[in-house]
């Protein structure tokens, strides 16, 4: 039995009461993850870490959690796992933001051009988007890595570019929707300039939620790609820690039954990516569907 009660006077409810509780839980969890990621980045940046990330302790190899002051144990060279996990964020944070920035700016540009002016420009943008979509991302990255060099920023630029079609497609369909509702025409009739219509009315008022969602998903993507590349040996290189090369290094001891050194970073990846995905999902449900 599902029960519905009318309150005598309708409440002026805050948004978290209006939203579905599952969405609120998603967003709450996602925000916790975002705070932790930013916090870790700051900790790493000011070098405020529990241990020296490079201090090798040959006596304590692959130690389980909570041994000798190492809360999360140590890796195959006896280095503190927690410290390296916190520091590992450095490998993603700025490169990930680069990828997001490229995807959002180029994608918004393409989407607006295709949707707002349409016609030939739309054909050009669609062709370019399909062209980018024709490359499997990892294969393209391997090509770039082989031709140039395995550099995390280069990789993230490629990730950003391969995300452009997604953003462009979303923005374009949003603009088309507004066009269909004569919204843009009304703004033109009022005498507003193209610049103001595009930036204020289209991008700021009607696409910002969408861009935020894409940004959260972009961060998750950056982490997963780096992890895969680390495994393939093209990611961030030792001794600089990244979660990807930590899982990779740890998994060499997997078959000997030493699970922990690779499981810890793998769980970090799992929870972080889950956080970004759920944040995106929850925001999507609340911001896009309700008002759309």
């Amino acid at each position, binding site marked *: 039995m599902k029960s519905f009660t009318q309150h005598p006077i309708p409440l002026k409810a805050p948004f978290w009461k209006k939203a579905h509780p599952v969405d609120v839980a998603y967003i709450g969890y996602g925000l916790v993850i975002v705070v932790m990621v930013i916090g870790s980045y700051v900790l790493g940046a000011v070098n405020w870490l529990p241990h020296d990330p490079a201090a090798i302790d040959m006596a304590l190899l692959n130690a389980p959690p909570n041994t000798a002051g190492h809360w999360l144990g140590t890796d195959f060279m006896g280095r503190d796992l927690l410290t390296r996990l916190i520091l590992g964020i450095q490998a993603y944070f700025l490169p990930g933001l680069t990828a997001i920035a490229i995807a959002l700016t180029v994608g918004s540009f393409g989407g607006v051009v295709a949707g707002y002016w349409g016609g030939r420009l739309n054909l050009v943008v669609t062709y370019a988007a399909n062209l980018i979509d024709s490359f499997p991302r990892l294969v393209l990255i391997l090509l770039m890595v082989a031709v140039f060099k395995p550099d995390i920023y280069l990789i993230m630029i490629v990730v950003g570019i391969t995300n452009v079609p997604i953003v462009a497609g979303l923005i374009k369909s949003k603009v088309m929707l507004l066009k269909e509702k*004569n919204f843009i025409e*009304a703004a033109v009739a*009022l*005498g507003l300039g193209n610049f103001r219509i595009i930036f204020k009315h289209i991008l700021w*008022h009607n696409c910002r939620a969408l861009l935020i969602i894409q940004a959260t998903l972009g961060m998750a993507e950056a982490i997963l790609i780096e992890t895969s590349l680390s495994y393939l040996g093209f990611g961030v290189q030792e001794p600089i820690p990244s979660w990807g090369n930590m899982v990779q290094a740890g998994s060499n001891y997997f078959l000997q039954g030493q699970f922990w050194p690779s499981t810890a970073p793998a769980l970090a990846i799992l929870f972080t990516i889950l956080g970004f995905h759920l944040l995106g999902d929850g925001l999507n449900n609340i911001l896009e569907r309700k*008002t759309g």
Partner: protein
Amino acid sequence: MTATILEVQNLAKHYRQPGNLWSSLSARSRIIPAVDDVSFYIKANETMGLVGETGCGKTTIGRTVLKLTRPSAGRIIFDGQDVTDLSPRQFRPYRRQMQMIFQDLDAALNPKMRIKAILKEAMQVHHPMKNGRLDARLEELVAKVNLKKSKLTNYPPELSGGEKRRVGIARALAVGARFLVADEPTSALDVSIQAQVVNLLKQLQATLGLSYLFISHDLRLVELISHKVAVMYLGRIVEMGLAGRIARKPHHPYTHILWSSLVEKKSRETAGIPNPPEASTPGVFDFQRPVHGCRFAPRCPVYHDKGQPAICTDPDATPPLRDVDASHKVACHFPL
């Protein structure tokens, strides 16, 4: 004699049929004449009604007049000035004199902006002003359209249909427009709200001296609010004249059918002319048929009664808009 505020001469708008690869390669792209050779004028403080079926090009005329789309041919003369070839920048000063009320209630209303912000933006586009004065003007404006002041802090989705329409009208007035294109301003509204909006438009015309191009398919409202009425069929004006005469003494068979098809009338009197056969796709241009000749012929009861005279389908004899009376024109070879 009042001044002519808008004059349209031989306006045409042709659309290319949405490109498919082969047609663009073979350069045989088909032209859809959405509006063809349309001329009319509107005087200050006057309302011209534009009626016709869906897809007959009446909205296209409204949009072309406001230069929201570029005409293929013809001239648009606003307030004695030819504005047809002005660039968007040159045309901007005219935008504050001519505005549009869109059929879609939400068209002008950014769902993420409060009503207040929407109206303030409209007021400041052409007349930047200080906040104090802005608020005073805003209050004036809201009072003009009978909108509750408490609604100013709401977002558009929280308003009812009638309120949205009022905001739409207020927005058009905010820039100081003298000429409004009202594209089906009542079609999305309930009967009781329709009456309010029509009254508001009439009242604004009386107090502010506005001119309207009133586009609607509701014949009775058009008749009530308009001084002149133009009847369109497939992109052409087939009859034009004073509202009362068009309604009661039509000369074109199509106009006759339109008015006699009013369900209200039919429930009381029987129509003199039998209903025409319903074309497979009424109101949509059929490319298989020739563009010239009388476009209404296939559905025209007179054409069928008269034994399908050749002149009606003669490609070189498109019936011109002729005077049949003082200020009453009709485009038909055999006017009623």
